[in-house]
């Protein structure tokens, strides 16, 4: 099969983006000098160092928070809402104009395929700013109350799996509702956030409205604990989410958390099998499985399990794993050596616990962080690969006989972020969607996102929604 589908390499040119050897942070409208002992961010596909960014200490975080407060009090808060909206529209346009450059930069820094950054991430980023821009002067119609007011300064911490998209999810609604922000990108993927800072400059956004501080966990902690933050927004692991919830307890700070997931993808026997297989693949192999809402547990009805698995293995064999900048690549690099170790550990445990492992026969590049698409069958609900978030291209397959059994198994997790349903029968789809304890249910599709669609979890997947009318609530006092 692989001979039949042999493609010539089709790499995207790197020349559209210039990566400087070092960057500073973005505070009060200006880039600070970079520090010599900063963090080096590498290209996970080659392990080549890309650039260096500073680590924000308490003093730097203080400075950024003070800039955000000043901008809130003097410029952004008093500004007529329609004018605020126009800045966001401007930013959205600039993002579209520079979309090629941003897509390449994101793929370089994160390791995800250019096909995804170009066709999914960056268009959604621009849409988030465009969508929220339009809310700025219509907030009294958002249904949160007659006279909603901004909260003030938002401290925002985002992960490495969708660096620029997660920035957009945090920054666009915060600015549209009249707040100012201090945002910390993940330590392994800071570059597109700093490119975004340059776009804020180009849009003439008033200094201090958006501040980007770089660093790792300690910087994030300083930000979330900062006494002058009115709002903390975090996307990341459930463990860190718990810690933030504990430190925010008893303060006046508002909190939203987007945490882990262990999404179930339910395939009933009447599903359109070929479409379901495509949905299973995009559910778990999109973005190398570095997706909190990934469909990492496949629940397939016993009578069609064999057929589904045969087709699934055939489809996975045809996934192209490799150079993220190649336009034909489906699965890119694992974001970091640390994440690769974590995936490896859970996969080893899966084997030790008796699940049967199947791995695509793809050839992996010699350098960089790679993990082949992997499927575990014979998985039970007690297995760690069925309970814990792997956050990698690893699918666990369980079976069920009745719809009730499917629901019980799907809901048997402390998480509740996403789920999928595959059936051609409308009444069965609605019955299932009603019973799944998850914030997003994709029926006959998977991993679809839109600025207008609220996203967020039940149970230990966190609280609050991002996107849509519901997402505005997180940044408004009403």
């Amino acid at each position, binding site marked *: 099969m692989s001979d039949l589908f042999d493609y010539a390499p089709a790499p995207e040119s790197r020349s559209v983006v210039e990566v400087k050897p070092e960057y500073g942070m973005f505070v009060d409208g200006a880039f600070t000098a970079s520090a010599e002992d900063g963090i080096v961010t590498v290209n996970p596909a080659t392990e080549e160092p890309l650039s260096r960014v500073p680590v924000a200490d308490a003093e730097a975080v203080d400075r950024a928070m003070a800039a955000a407060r000043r901008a809130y009090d003097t410029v952004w808060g008093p500004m007529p809402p329609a004018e605020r909206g126009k800045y966001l529209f401007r930013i959205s346009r600039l993002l579209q104009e520079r979309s090629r450059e941003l897509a390449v930069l994101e793929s370089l820094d994160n390791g995800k395929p250019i096909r995804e950054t170009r066709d999914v991430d960056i268009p959604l980023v621009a849409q988030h700013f465009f969508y929220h821009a339009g809310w700025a002067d219509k907030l009294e119609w958002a249904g949160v109350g007659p006279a909603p007011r901004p909260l003030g300064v938002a401290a925002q911490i985002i992960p490495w799996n969708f660096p620029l998209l997660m920035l957009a999810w945090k920054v666009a609604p915060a600015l549209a509702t009249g707040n100012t922000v201090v945002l910390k990108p993940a330590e392994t993927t800071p570059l597109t956030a700093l490119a975004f800072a340059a776009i804020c400059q180009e849009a003439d956004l008033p200094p201090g409205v958006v501040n980007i501080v770089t660093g790792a966990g300690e910087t994030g902690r300083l930000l979330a604990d900062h006494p002058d933050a009115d709002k903390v927004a975090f996307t990341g692991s459930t463990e860190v989410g*718990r810690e933030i919830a504990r430190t925010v307890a*008893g303060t*006046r700070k508002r909190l939203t958390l987007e945490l882990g997931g262990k999404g179930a993808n339910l395939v009933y026997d009447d599903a359109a099998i070929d479409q379901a297989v495509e949905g299973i693949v995009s559910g778990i192999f999109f973005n190398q499985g570095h997706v909190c809402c990934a469909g990492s547990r496949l629940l397939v009805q016993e009578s069609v399990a064999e057929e589904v698995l045969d087709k699934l293995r055939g489809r996975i064999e045809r996934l192209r794993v490799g150079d993220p900048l190649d336009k034909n690549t489906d699965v890119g690099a694992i974001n970091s050596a640390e994440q690769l170790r974590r995936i490896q550990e859970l996969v080893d445990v899966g084997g030790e616990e008796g699940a049967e492992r199947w791995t695509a026969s793809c050839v992996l590049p010699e350098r960089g962080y790679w993990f082949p698409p992997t499927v575990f069958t014979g998985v039970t609900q007690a297995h760690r690969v069925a309970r814990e978030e792997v956050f990698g291209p690893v699918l666990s397959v369980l079976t069920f006989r009745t719809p009730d059994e499917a629901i019980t198994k799907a809901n048997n997790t402390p998480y509740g972020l996403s789920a999928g349903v595959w059936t051609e029968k409308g009444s069965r789809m609605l019955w299932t969607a009603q019973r799944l304890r998850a*914030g997003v*249910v994709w029926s006959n599709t998977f991993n679809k996102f*839109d600025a*207008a*669609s609220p996203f967020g979890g039940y149970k230990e997947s966190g609280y609050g929604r991002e996107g849509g009318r519901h997402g505005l609530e997180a940044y408004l006092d009403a």
Partner: protein
Amino acid sequence: MREPETAPRRLSVRKTYKLYVGGAFPRSESARSYPVSDVSGAHLANAAQASRKDVRDAVVSARSAVAGWSARTGYNRGQILYRVAEMMEGRRDQFVSEVAASAGESPQEAGDTVSAAIDRWVHYAGWADKLTQVLGNPNEVAGPYYNQSAPEPVGVVGVVAPPEDPLLGLVSVLAPVITAGNTCVVVASERAPLPAVTLAEVLATSDLPGGVVNVLTGRAGELLAPLASHADVDALDLTGATTGGREEAVELERAAASTLTRVLRPGATPTDWHAAPGVARLRRFVETKTVWHPIGV
């Protein structure tokens, strides 16, 4: 011989105040009770003093009632909430005397309070079948998808009733929770628990399924910590958790963080329970579920 004039013609039957768990009225498993006084310190009655084990039993009972209650139609939930108002009206004299004694209100004031509590049930009865329309909507996504967001109950809610307002405060925090389809464990006012037990008797005879509301009386200091840290509690209303000072609510919120339990913090200023309630409390105890489906033929 004739009987002494002071002997009553009939000895009154005093009421034993008990817990309300799973639709039944058990004593505390700890077999304890505690004396309840009116505002002047005169003894009114003994109330059951619930234990940590009673908290756990109440959570189990609330959990088992979630599936049935949340699956009812909004119309049916509204009917039952209205029935609660009807049953309270029928027993208003008892409520008036209990509120007057325990909150130190004049008969006139207590009457107003009871009327407001009854009217609050009527208010929420009308919300039950409108919540989805008000809090949910289709989403205008950029593609051929049906995309719909709707509120769903969060599940089991731990409710700390406002201690200073044992009836109207209690109804104001309890009604929105169950209107949205949640079930709950309520810790009644420690000092004035009697109206809560009488309300439980009303709920028990209002077609409300057993376990939807569970009422515990006892020492807040003993009951709130296990309720807040219970892993099977999905959300907490800490409005009433300020008796022991602000630190109490902070401790409870911190305990709730371990299982990412949703928390409604006590307000910075005391709530005016006579004011119109708005929609904020309803919104706090629902999750938004968004369903996508492709459009095509």
